[in-house]
Every structure is written in C-alpha cells, then in structure tokens.
C-alpha cells in the first residue's frame, strides 16, 4: 500500500497559477507553503502580496492575505504585526517592489527589527510590467528600458539587498538562496525554515533573498533560464547566510584610506 511522499502542501490552494511556464515563482510559493505547514502556523499566518507578478499570491496561498501598494509590503507587515503580535506575518516581494520603490520601507522595517519574515524574489527584472530594468538587473543585461544592456556608468551597479541590510545593527536573520536547481531549492527551503522559525520564536526580523528566473522577460526558454541564472547571477549574488541574530556586527569599519 503506497504512501505519498511528495504532493501539494496544505498551504497552497489547488489552482493553476498565472505564472509563465518555468517561472520559479511557483517553486518559491511551494517552499514557503511547505515551511508554514511544517511549523504548523498556517492558521495564524497572514501573508502580504506585493505589486508584481506575484500580485495574485493571495489566490494561491491557502491563508488570510493582504495586498500592499507597490513596495510598501514591509510597512503593511509592520502594521499587521504591531496590531497582532500573535500572528505570523510574511511579505513576498519582487526586486522592483522591494529594492526600487520599496527601499525605504524594507530598510526601516529591518532596522526597527519588526518580527516579520520577508521573502525577497530577485529575478533581476520587472516581470509584470514587461521587462524593464530593475535595480538588480545585471551589467549589460538587456531590458526594455535599457535596450542596449544596462550601462553601469549611467545607472550604477546592481543593488545587493542582502549585503546592504546586513550592515544594520539591529539583530536579524538575513540570507540569500536560489531555486534554479532542485538541490539549491532544498537549501532555500532550509533558509526559509530558519527565517520563519526566528519569527515564530519572536527573535528577530528575517529576510531571505531568493534568486529566481523570468524566462519570459529574459527571452530564453525555462531550461536555459536556469543556466543563465547560474552563469550570470550567482557570481554577483553569492548565496549563504549573511547575518544572524547571534552573529556579530557586519558593518564595515573605516579603513582610513
């Protein structure tokens, strides 16, 4: 008599997503839902959808959900958590949402040490609006607002959110993972598990940046997209844990030069 060893988590509703074929938003949805199931907190979790391709996340996660205006999910999360500290609150945000228009909200939410969890999906492009440049777009990468490739002279270098937030003095768990390869997805899930556990234990703010693909706007088939990510994003966005509440201050010191 056969036992099911892999199937849809309770945390996800049984519907087909609107995501493009091979978009790893779907993988990240599943990992988050699995972790919430495992921690047994689904019934007291409130998620916050961003404005971005995952704007409809509330149609997929089987829990109470909140919309947020573009980039402000961390402020919305703050409001929810301060009103109801017993709830488990997480935001799910894209790189345009979090790193461009939402930069102020994420920095201050992290710095206040709000006991919430941020799932930061970095696909190096604006998906929903049709492939414009994101703060995370790589040098030379083509986007509809930099059709000759991102010119770092004019637009600067890609922002590494995890590195930036790790310098804050307020204790937090901050890590970067990727889901372009199933073995790394397993690690990504472990990072998410730790992030949510820190919240469940009311320890600190937690954020996991997850590198993700956007085959549609990268203009490559899904299978190539995973390779593109490995080749181009991994070198610039190193995976790993950058900051733990136990660990010491990650801020750079003056180097006198």
């Amino acid at each position: 008599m056969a036992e099911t060893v892999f199937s849809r988590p309770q945390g996800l509703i049984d519907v087909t997503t609107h995501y493009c074929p091979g978009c790893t938003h779907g993988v990240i949805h599943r990992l988050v839902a699995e972790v919430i199931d495992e921690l047994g907190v689904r019934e007291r979790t409130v998620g916050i959808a961003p404005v971005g391709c995952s704007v409809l996340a509330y149609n997929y996660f089987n829990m109470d959900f909140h919309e947020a205006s573009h980039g402000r999910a961390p402020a919305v999360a703050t409001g929810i958590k301060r009103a109801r500290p017993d709830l488990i609150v997480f935001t799910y945000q894209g790189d345009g949402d979090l790193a461009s228009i939402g930069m102020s909200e994420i920095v201050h939410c992290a710095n206040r040490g709000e006991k919430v969890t941020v799932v930061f999906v970095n696909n190096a492009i604006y998906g929903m609006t049709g492939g414009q440049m994101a703060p995370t777009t790589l040098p030379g990468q083509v986007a509809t607002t930099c059709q000759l490739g991102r010119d770092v002279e004019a637009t600067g270098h890609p922002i590494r959110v995890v590195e930036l937030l790790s310098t804050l003095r307020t204790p937090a768990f901050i890590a970067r993972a990727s889901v372009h390869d199933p073995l790394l997805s397993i690690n990504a899930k472990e990072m998410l598990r730790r992030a949510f556990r820190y919240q469940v234990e009311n320890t600190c703010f937690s954020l996991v940046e997850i590198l993700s693909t956007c085959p549609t706007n990268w203009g490559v088939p899904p299978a190539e997209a995973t390779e593109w990510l490995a080749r181009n994003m991994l070198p610039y966005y190193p995976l790993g844990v950058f900051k733990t509440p136990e660990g010491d201050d990650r801020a750079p010191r003056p180097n006198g030069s």
Partner: protein
Amino acid sequence: MPQIIITPNACKGCELCVQACPQKILGMGKRINDKGYFYAEVVEQMRCIGCRLCCITCPDLAIDMRVNGTMYHYFSY
C-alpha cells in the same frame, strides 16, 4: 518502489523536470493538454530512484510521488 504521477493539465511544459532528473527518465510528450501545452511524461518509471528532484523542481506542482514500502532518502527535505 517510487512512483511518479504527473497531472497533465497542471503541466505547463517548461521541461525543467526533464532537465532535473538525474536518471533522465522524464520526457516531453507529444500530446497537448487543455491549456495547449505539450506536457511531461514518465518514460522509464522502472529506473526512478525516488530522489524527488523532479517534484522539487516543478514550479506548478504537476508532479507527485508515491512509494510502496520504505525508501532511501538521499536528503532531508
């Protein structure tokens, strides 16, 4: 004995599972599902080692796995 179950109408034909399978026992079929995608199929169920990498890879939860009896876990997930 692991068993892969692919739900045709859940599949978007992205081929990531085909790429992910270490045993290369998955392939894209010739039939179109309700959404108009050529969907993935298990080609050689017999050689499946139950690693679940296809399941973990699939962005659309189109792949479930069942096993008869116990089975070796290559990694905790």
